[in-house]
């Protein structure tokens, strides 16, 4: 960095006024008998974005902390941080190379879509069962393993779609079986402390699945072949393909944005799955029943919905979504029995960010985490440190979310 003092001075200013805004705003709102659920977040963001110039009018006028204000304040904070960064490090790739930033954003969004799908499964389980599934990473791993073995060992040459369906069925079955066998004692009072029990038993499932797969399949890295290699395209002309250029493994848009084939295909499958899931949840009776149970179990039971059956469906579906994420990514990453640990950790960050129990929150959280990881790794000046901090980016987001809005962006207040 050329002028690190500028950057760190701005960061310090933002943290200081963010803290002041986060602490003082809820007290002022409380005194004015206003809803304070979003006051710390709004105060912190407005303080970070505009310092006292924004906070004083906020305290005086005390408008309702609407999503619009929070979005504006977030945008303002990001803009301020980006400007400070640009001034401090003008030679940074993120400052002087638009194509680099475009590629980072594209890759961040692509990965964020896939992360979001996996996190959706976790939040679905929580919204219905009120249980955090600590074996979520293992469902992800099993989904990938099933696809690999299906396409490379058991039925080489079989259509990939069948392999993905097999992965979905296997993870669905494991999820359903686990719920019936180990989680039902929580509902009928056989367990004294159901929440702690659920945590422990899902940890147990995680270790069991991980080491079972290691014992059966070994621990050597495996990988599925690309599902759908790109056809060779050159647009508008082969001599000057400035709009779109593809090879089997990569596509380049506008000579700027480079996206690898496996991730692109995985993201497309994730979006299709998301649309199917939304259709299921909002257009089918079963989906509406699931949503009803997540809103109010007892009211749903009164309306004739069996909450226990919805529990099984939710856990199975949640595990299946993780398995599907793994099934799409086994062509992108080398797969080992421990491959699910990092994505599981990321899923926890995403669901806290988006709000436990919120499906749109999980997806939006996935996009945000994908973008932050891409931006952090791409923009941190020291290349020998940038990638090492990847786990930290998620933890910083988690910490800020827990401090400022513990229920997450779209979480319901319990």
């Amino acid at each position, binding site marked *: 960095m050329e002028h690190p003092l500028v950057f760190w001075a701005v960061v310090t200013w933002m943290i200081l006024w963010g803290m002041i805004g986060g602490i003082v705003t809820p007290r002022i709102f409380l005194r004015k008998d206003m809803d304070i659920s979003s006051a710390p977040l709004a105060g912190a963001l407005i303080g970070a974005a505009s310092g006292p110039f924004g906070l004083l009018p906020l305290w005086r006028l005390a408008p309702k902390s609407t999503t619009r204000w929070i979005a504006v304040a977030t945008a303002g904070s990001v803009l301020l941080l980006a400007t400070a960064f640009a001034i401090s490090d003008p030679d940074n*790739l993120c400052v002087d190379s638009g194509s680099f930033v475009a590629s980072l954003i594209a890759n961040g969004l692509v990965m964020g879509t896939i992360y979001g799908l996996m996190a959706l499964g976790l939040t679905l389980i929580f919204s219905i069962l009120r249980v955090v599934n600590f074996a979520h990473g293992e469902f992800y791993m099993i989904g990938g393993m099933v696809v690999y073995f299906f396409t490379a060992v058991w039925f080489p040459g079989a259509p990939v779609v069948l392999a993905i369906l097999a992965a979905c069925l296997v993870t669905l079955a494991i999820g359903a079986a686990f719920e019936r066998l180990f989680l039902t004692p929580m509902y009928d009072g056989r367990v004294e402390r159901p929440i702690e029990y659920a945590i422990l038993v899902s940890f147990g499932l995680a270790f069991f699945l991980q080491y079972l797969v290691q014992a059966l399949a070994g621990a*050597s*890295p495996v990988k599925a072949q690309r599902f759908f290699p790109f056809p060779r395209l050159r647009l508008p002309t082969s001599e000057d393909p400035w709009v779109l250029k593809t090879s089997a*493994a990569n596509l380049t848009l506008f000579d700027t944005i480079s996206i690898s084939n496996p991730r692109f295909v995985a993201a497309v499958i994730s979006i299709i799955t998301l649309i199917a899931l939304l259709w299921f949840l909002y257009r089918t009776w079963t989906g509406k029943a699931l949503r009803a149970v997540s809103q109010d179990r007892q009211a749903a039971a009164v309306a004739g919905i069996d909450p226990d059956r919805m529990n099984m469906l939710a856990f199975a579906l949640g595990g299946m979504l993780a398995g599907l994420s793994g099934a799409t990514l086994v062509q992108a990453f080398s797969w080992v029995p421990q491959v699910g640990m990092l994505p599981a950790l990321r899923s926890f960050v995403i669901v806290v960010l988006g709000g436990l129990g919120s499906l749109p929150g999980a997806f939006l959280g996935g996009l945000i985490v994908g973008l932050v990881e891409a931006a952090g790794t791409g923009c941190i000046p020291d290349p020998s440190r940038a*990638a090492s901090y*990847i786990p930290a980016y998620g933890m910083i987001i988690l910490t800020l979310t827990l401090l400022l809005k513990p229920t997450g962006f779209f979480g319901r207040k319990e």
Partner: protein
Amino acid sequence: MQPRLRKLASVLLGITASAVIFGAPHGALAANCPIKLGGIAPLSAPGSVTGGEAQREAIKIAVEEINAKGGVLGCKIELVIGDTEGLPEKGTALFEKLISQDNVVAIAGGYHSSVGMAAKEVAHDKGIPVIFASTWNDQITSSKLPEVFRVAPLSSEASAIYWKFIAKIPNVKNVAIVTENTDYGIPAAEEAKKGLESINMSATTYAVDIGNQDFASIVLRVKAQKPDAILTLLTGEASLNFEQQAAENGMGPGDVPFICDIIAAESNSFWKNVPDGNYCFVGQFGLPEALYNDAAKAFAKKYKERTGKDSVESYAVEAYDAIGVLATAIEKAGSTDPKAIIAALESVEHNGALGKVSFPYGTSKDPSAEGKDAKWWHQYLDPALMIFQYQEVNQKAGDAPIVFPDSYKTGEAVFVNK
């Protein structure tokens, strides 16, 4: 017998029995059968499992061979294998367990430098000899601990082979080094960078945590740097992930001179995980198959039969010889006393698959006496260092030509940037 004599006989018998049972400190008897040896390797993530499993098989073959020939000091060897997971804290705990609970008389193996760096202190505290098979960090031996020996190459020497090779690649001024944030990766990158700068090349180092999967942003940064060559100092699955993701973004071995991690020598796993890895250069440590001695040929045959692989990785050969050297040293010492084994190791000459393995510098001849750096303490001097290149898709490592240095060369390199 008279009561007094009977009493004297019982006392003498009791004293003798006590001396036998309690008087012998750990391993001091000439032959306390079976002789337990510890074998260490990374057998689960985030360690390099491909490397660890290769070492485990090699160690098992070595022990089986020794036992088939009658064992050591008339005793069979009992092998106790442990998983380091590639983590220093696990390695340290493993050493504690092997020494204190399993009562091994010596330990061999090891893949990750971070494990070696931490665990050597346990070996030193307990006075148990260890031969590190594939841990490269110079400080493992430069700390001059009496118990620590190594057959693996030194990181500085291995880095030298890389940058000296890069010097031969035409049109290279700017190199990207992608390494891991470990006791192996950081020093190796520093040594490579220093070497490259000494020949007027610039180098940028990108470091990631061990076990990293997603390299998209790193690949984009490397691509933006427009390097003339890429050197991968990552290990394990992370290296495979990086190599393939770089290839998918037009920065792979088919686009720019690319040195892959040594794990690429396991060709089955390499082509499965890096299908776009053709033209990758790979470090080979130990003689190529064409130059194998009889011991190496015999080991290679057994290893390939057992594992189904087409070639033998260098870290497997190193692990195999590490056990062999220990057995030879114990036989030479005539005892399983750790101090006796250490003394024997300092003067041992073992005809192994690597060649004639010995440790010329130690207590009797300090490296400084011949103007050598402390890193040569208890260090095997001659791990043959060379580079081969895959020149056909799905090529077996044994069929790939050695392209550097000239003394081992079997074919010409293909430089994709020419």
